[in-house]
């Protein structure tokens, strides 16, 4: 239990799931300076989208066929809700005081939770999520649980796709320009309204991939799963430097590793044996956030403020 490499891998996997969700917070913040507090719930609806696809498929369908379809289902549901939220909840408030869209986001988050609770069949308690058969996998002294295999593959691929999109495509460059100076981006011919929609959609798509990873990792999903995970992912985004997409992933990994190591080793420190349980993991995660904010308020990869002058 106390092997360091194993704990590091566990933390890395947990952290890459945080990172996938954190991308959505950071992209939207980077472009419209809105903390989309409904993003955790968009993640949650993605998980239910994936589950719905699974329930539609005939019983006994192989996961090799089901999983890609479930990802597509998760992405469609999450993106549709995120784009709808942007169009009908946030866009009308684009020029309103900052507090208005923030409160809207919190309201939307509650509404989505309650909608799933009330209308999704048997969602009043946790629903089991399909699992990949086989595994666990041993690599040297490190064991990777079957449910985590998806993350090992999906997280790096997602990150590579995102980096390629932002750096190499025209829309990605328009997105960078919009984040740095929206009015001037318009003067260059960038349709900033469209860029904002794309930022919401992309963030939701990565959250949906994270949601499938969550279901596979923990074996069940529920209507409240987006709250704590959303908070963790938001923490990861701030930790990495909000507005910076690489920061989101790195913040996620740092948070996941720190949380895992704290849970594994803090109890070994004399007098700290009470503080090592799983229920303290969230406390250590947020302590880390406070420490980073104290000593490096802009986050690990945060932009230098002087740039804004």
């Amino acid at each position, binding site marked *: 239990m106390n092997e360091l490499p194993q704990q590091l891998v566990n933390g890395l996997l947990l952290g890459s799931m945080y990172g996938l969700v954190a991308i959505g917070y950071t992209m939207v913040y980077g472009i419209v300076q809105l903390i989309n507090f409904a993003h955790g719930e968009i993640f949650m609806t993605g998980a239910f989208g994936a589950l719905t696809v699974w329930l539609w498929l005939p019983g006994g369908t192989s996961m090799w066929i089901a999983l890609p379809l479930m990802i597509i289902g998760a992405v469609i549901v999450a993106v549709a809700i995120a784009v709808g939220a942007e169009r009908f909840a946030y866009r009308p408030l684009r020029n309103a005081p900052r507090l208005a869209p923030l409160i809207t986001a919190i309201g939307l988050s509650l509404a989505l939770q309650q909608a799933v609770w009330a209308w999704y069949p048997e969602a009043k308690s946790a629903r089991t999520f399909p699992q990949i058969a086989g595994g666990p996998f041993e690599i040297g002294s490190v064991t990777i649980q079957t449910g985590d295999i998806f993350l090992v593959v999906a997280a790096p691929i997602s990150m590579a796709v995102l980096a390629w999109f932002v750096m190499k495509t025209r829309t990605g460059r*328009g997105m960078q*320009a919009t984040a740095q100076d929206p*009015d*001037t981006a318009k003067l260059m011919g960038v349709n900033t309204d469209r860029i904002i929609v794309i930022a919401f959609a992309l963030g939701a798509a990565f959250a949906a991939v994270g949601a499938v990873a969550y279901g596979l990792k923990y074996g069940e999903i529920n209507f409240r799963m987006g709250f704590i995970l959303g908070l963790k992912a938001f923490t990861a985004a701030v930790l990495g430097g909000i507005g910076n997409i690489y920061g989101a992933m790195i913040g996620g990994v740092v948070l996941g590793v720190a949380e895992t190591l704290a849970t594994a080793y803090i109890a070994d420190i004399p007098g700290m044996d009470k503080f090592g349980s799983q229920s303290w993991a969230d406390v250590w995660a947020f302590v880390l956030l406070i420490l980073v904010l104290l000593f490096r308020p802009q986050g690990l990869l945060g932009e230098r403020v002087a740039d804004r002058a």
Partner: protein
Amino acid sequence: MTALLEVEDLRVAYGKIEAVKGISFKVEAGQVVTLIGTNGAGKTTTLRTLSGLLKPVGGQIRFNGRSLKKIPAHQVVSLGLAHSPEGRHIFPRMSIEDNLRLGAFLRNDKPGIEKDIQRAYDLFPILGERRKQAAGTLSGGEQQMLAMGRALMSQPKLLMLDEPSMGLSPIMMQKIMATIAELKAQGTTILLVEQNAQAALSLADQGHVMEIGNIVLSGTGRDLLHDESVRKAYLGED
């Protein structure tokens, strides 16, 4: 023959406060036209309205025979109207070259874009030497060069320059003005907004003096340069 840009009775307001109160002027192809005046005269508001960032409350804008009134800002540049904004507004965290490429955001002719990037470097060699450097690290004058180079990347029919000499050292200012003269000699049509009336009028074919939202005086650059009231108000003579 109609002019390239025709502004007629243009009125722009921020809420209830009218910043531009019904101005009319024209820019013919190949001309340099300047709007001069003090802070708050409405010069920047006029340019921001022409490029679609602000919506007019009244009047007409016709560019190349089309009304610009209903065209969103991000489509204006594709019609051939480029705007180098006040305060330069380069993209600070992008490299110089990426800034120039954004100027060509809507163009699809790769070889043409590469050629025009080279042309920008020929016009401003310092940019070529630092092409990979983040634009935010440039000096004010270099950022101004970049903003002008970036605006030219869209191959505009009309280049609008807002306060290109603002905050620059006298040497840098001369350099920027010399560049504008060079662009003019190459046949670029320019609408120039300046507080530095002396420099702007010496370059301009036509000049308009703006005061609190109105054009109070118009004439050729040379006439205005020798106009007594202009000399008193804007050229610091008594």
